[in-house]
């Protein structure tokens, strides 16, 4: 009997099961239960949601294991957790604690400004952020089993997530029409592994699930990202920074499932209360742009 754990099929397959769903940021057991009750497919256990991390400034690290443990014990849906980019030990700690997925995330302050974690070396799967196809394929090359757009976390502004999703889709189409010699130059220019580009050319899609993240604040935002080709959505600050988290959570889940049912989305959007406060991109200083913290 040959049993294997941590294979690509098992790690990527886990993300396949999340498709069409919403993954919600939570900071305690109570929020985790609200998310599960609303129909989230997974929760992301954090010490602070991105908009609070943004407001607090300073160095943002892996959450206190007490928070992660509390959330792990509170729900039966999968629990994800964030490690700093390049922080091998934070990732190992989360793996040891039983986190189901690790987000090597630019929302936290990077621990390594050059290298990402060698994720192939882990049994637990990883999700990573991307702004374009090259970045997406570099992460897959390092062993990411799931991708998400970076967007601009904690802003409640969808514009960056839209930009990143469109960029990836456009570049997939470009790659499909390239000659093999052009593909090698494209690999050189983008730092994307050539073999993965060949695979994209053949299949016309990424080899892993790609969710939208970074700025989703309303049911319509979630539906927009699905319309643009996202496999599902992460909602960070959007839920528990809104007026009515239960209602927001439920509505975002439904809008994601039925993203082309506009009458339903209209109904879901009624009397939702105020969404999280938003930030205009031009008001962000260069050092405040989380998406630029890693390449």
């Amino acid at each position, binding site marked *: 009997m040959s*049993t294997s754990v941590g294979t690509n099929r*098992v790690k990527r*397959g886990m993300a*396949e099961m*999340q498709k069409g*769903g919403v993954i919600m940021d939570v900071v305690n057991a109570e929020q985790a239960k609200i998310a599960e009750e609303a129909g989230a497919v*997974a929760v992301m256990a954090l010490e602070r949601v991105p908009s609070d991390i943004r407001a607090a400034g300073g160095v943002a690290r892996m959450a206190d294991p007490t928070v992660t443990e509390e959330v792990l014990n509170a729900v039966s849906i999968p629990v994800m957790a964030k490690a700093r980019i390049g922080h091998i030990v934070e990732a190992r700690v989360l793996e040891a604690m*039983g986190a189901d*997925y690790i987000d090597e995330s630019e929302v936290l302050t990077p621990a390594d400004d050059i290298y990402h974690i060698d994720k192939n070396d882990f049994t637990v799967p990883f999700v990573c952020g991307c702004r374009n196809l090259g970045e997406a394929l570099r992460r897959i090359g390092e062993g990411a089993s799931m991708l998400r757009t970076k967007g601009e976390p904690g802003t409640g502004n969808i514009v960056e997530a839209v930009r990143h999703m469109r960029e990836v889709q456009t570049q997939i189409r470009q790659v499909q029409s390239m000659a093999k010699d052009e593909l090698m130059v494209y690999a050189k220019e983008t730092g994307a592994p050539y073999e993965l580009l060949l695979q994209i050319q053949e299949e016309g899609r990424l080899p892993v699930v790609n969710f939208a993240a970074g700025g989703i604040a309303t049911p319509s935002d979630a539906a927009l990202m699905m319309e643009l080709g996202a496999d599902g959505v992460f909602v960070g600050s959007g839920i528990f920074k809104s007026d009515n988290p239960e209602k927001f959570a439920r509505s975002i*889940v439904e809008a994601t499932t039925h993203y082309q049912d506009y009458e339903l989305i209209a109904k879901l959007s009624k009397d939702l209360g105020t969404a999280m406060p938003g930030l205009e991109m031009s008001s962000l200083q260069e050092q405040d742009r989380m998406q630029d913290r890693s390449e």
Partner: protein
Amino acid sequence: MTTIGVLGLQGAIREHVRSIEACGKEAVVVKKPEQLEEVDGLILPGGESTTMRRLIDRYNFFEPLQQFGKAGKPIFGTCAGLILLASDIEGQNDAHLGLMDMTVARNAFGRQKESFEAPVEINGVAEDFEAVFIRAPYIQEVKADTEVLGVYDGKIVAAQQGHLLATAFHPELTDDHRLVQHFVEMVDQANGNKLASV
């Protein structure tokens, strides 16, 4: 033409559609209860069972799904789908659709880092099915005339009760279409019976 639906609320929907088409049948993604009338058989895909149940309730799918099964139309549940089909869930007072006589334990093989793949023998279907288990449940006990089809490490991971089929693993994550082919034959047989009784 036999048409097989895939419950399209959440999860690995596209993969099942691909398997059904590879078996030469037409696949429909079922997002609304009324679509159940258009299909001869239904696959409940892998995903999150809690999430699917919430959406089943919100879109009034519950009764139509139960009626679909009770009318003798074949249903195949994989992983989350198996949990939805079961009559009993360990540690919970309420089951979901409760169509198939068996007790299941959720996340019984552990968390994601314990997820695995292994070859499993499926009676009458495959000697070495490539089974991918993801935070998988298993069947603790089969009841009534539910038949065990596959066992891994002493745990029941595949079962059939007449027109109902369930696996704890995900055939949709592989290119091994033998289980879906088996299900397609169940659907064809149910269709044949229906035609014969007219």
